[in-house]
């Protein structure tokens, strides 16, 4: 038997389970308590767990993210929420200079078992300071594990796995996914946070995507299937460390690859993935590597402009056609 559930509800259940299962876990972030979370993910948790464990913070990203790091270093298991990825830049010092460095810089004396949840991505018509996809930047940083749940089961179970990791883990939740509904298989009670996953098996081309890009890639695959093109869709899931072997296994089978990334193409995570494939599977390819990325503009407000700035299913389908049936 399966139950239908939203991505938002899956995230909420994951947080609730974390608070129930470990008294050292607590939540910290802007408007996660009385307001219920800006995307309503934490709604109801303040009433159930109280102000000690569901902490509303002032608008001080650097201070409360740093507080999460310090609390993690002395034995707590904080889960910090940052309202939107653009605001995470205000805490970049703490994330990059402290969370990512302290285990190594201290010669292994201290771990930083901290989870940071960050809403990311475009599509909500909220313009250039709430819509970017900077998770690729974070994936550049040694010491961090970077997750991008797109599937409902990942929204539900990645958090528990992240809390077991002794290292800082950043979970990027794409804002367009919160209302998505899906089935949660009751037979699944955990997921790994190390591997990419094939979400649709295909033979003609590998499409690597994550976050909302995965949903768009799956949509493109439907269109392509009707045209007789079989696309294998890979959910990257873990942006750091990259699961290169799952990617290579697919690409060496299909011999063609399109990488979808909402981030800008220049210096992107898509560039890194493409280069790894080129380094390891160059002679297995029958066609050049292709990328479908965000256009190189700050995300604009107007709906038609924003849609044009983000990778769309039609763009992905077109990129695939260009590889499978070259003009």
């Amino acid at each position: 038997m399966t139950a239908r559930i939203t991505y938002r509800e899956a995230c909420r259940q994951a947080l609730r389970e974390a608070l129930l299962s470990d008294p050292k876990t607590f939540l910290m972030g802007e408007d996660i308590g009385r307001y219920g979370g800006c995307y309503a993910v934490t709604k109801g948790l303040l009433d159930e767990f109280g102000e000690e464990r569901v902490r509303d913070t002032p608008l001080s990203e650097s201070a409360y993210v740093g507080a999460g790091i310090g609390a993690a270093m002395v034995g707590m298991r904080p889960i910090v929420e940052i309202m939107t990825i653009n605001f995470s830049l205000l805490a970049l010092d703490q994330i990059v200079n402290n969370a990512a460095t302290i285990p190594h810089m201290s010669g292994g004396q201290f771990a930083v078992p901290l989870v940071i949840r960050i809403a990311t991505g475009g599509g909500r018509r909220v313009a250039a300071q709430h819509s970017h996809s900077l998770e690729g930047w974070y994936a550049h940083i040694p010491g961090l594990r970077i997750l991008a749940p797109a599937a409902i089961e990942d929204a539900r179970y990645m958090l528990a796995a992240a809390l077991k990791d002794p290292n800082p883990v950043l979970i990027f939740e794409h804002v367009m996914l919160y209302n998505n509904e899906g089935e949660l298989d009751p037979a699944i009670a955990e997921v790994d946070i190390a591997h990419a996953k094939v979400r649709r098996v295909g033979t003609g081309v590998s499409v690597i995507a994550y976050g909302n890009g995965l949903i768009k890639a799956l949509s493109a695959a439907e269109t392509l299937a009707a045209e007789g093109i079989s696309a294998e869709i890979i959910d990257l899931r873990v942006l750091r460390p990259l699961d290169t072997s799952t990617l290579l296994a697919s690409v060496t089978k299909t011999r063609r690859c399109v990488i979808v990334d909402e981030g800008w193409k220049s210096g992107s995570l898509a560039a890194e993935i493409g280069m790894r494939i080129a380094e390891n599977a160059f002679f297995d390819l029958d066609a050049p590597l292709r990328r479908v990325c965000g256009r190189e503009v700050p995300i604009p407000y107007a709906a038609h402009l924003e849609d044009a700035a983000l990778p769309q299913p039609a763009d992905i389908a077109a990129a695939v056609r260009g590889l499978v049936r070259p003009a």
Partner: protein
Amino acid sequence: MSARVRLDHDHVRHLLRQMIRIRHFESKCAELYQAQKILGFLHLYDGEEAVSVGVMEALTPEDAVVATYREHGQAIARGVGMNALMAEMLGKQEGCCHGRGGSMHIFDRKTRFYGGNAIVGGGLPLAIGVALGDKMLGRNAVTACFFGDGAVDEGEFHESMNLASLWGLPVLFVCENNLYAMGMALERAEARTDLARKADAYRMTGVAIDGMDVVAVESAARKAVEEIRAGGGPQFLECHTYRFRAHSMFDAQLYRTKDEVEAWRKKGPIGRFEGWLLKNSLISEEEVHRIEVEADAEVDRAVVFAEAGTPEPVGELERFVTMEAVPA
């Protein structure tokens, strides 16, 4: 623990000895830097010893310390072993951070020393978290957070002061005001230079003291720590001090005059305390000499230990980038 400082012989001897140990350790570091055995940046604490020695006297082993990048003195006063410290300066495996941190990033789990932080102001949010975690875990610990006057320029200072006060966290903010953020004079950087008053904006007790007087520092720190431990919330201690040497080893000191440095040297914390002890017959010349000889011997042993140490194998380079487990 009482806020009163015991001025019995053992205690005053201990205070003087701690300051001398720091001074002699760092003099040797400067030599080793000239000899290119210590590389990179070396920020000496010369002149500021009374601050960390005084503050650490107010802490128990259960308390925590968050330090700056000018933290050799903070580390020694806290009880970090000189051997592991010197080995770290020389980049050896036997160093407290296996040669990964160096002069600016001394960490020591045993003494709850949460790191030399080289991002000015970057240690303050961390200290908030250490205090928050300790509080949530039911430990009656105080976190002493050291930073310089330059940190007051940073947003992280203000965010952290506010959050600590808002949540009533047991933090002692210790501002080592040496009047210069590298070469930037305080009055050129801050619209209001009496830094202790900034605490008032965060509904926090703020006290300014003579940071060249080890007894004054200890006394103020004891009072503050006692009140913090009793649940009174965080406090702010501004210690007026001065760094006698250059900011780091690459500093022509164009931003201050030789006269200014000389005037402050006359107020130096070691000479001043030693003179006062001798004048009041609380210590003898012979005893001071013995402390110095012992400090030199301790430093020499640390150098021998460090030089005999093993270079961390390059094969271990990526070790600790991610941890296998949270250390017990």
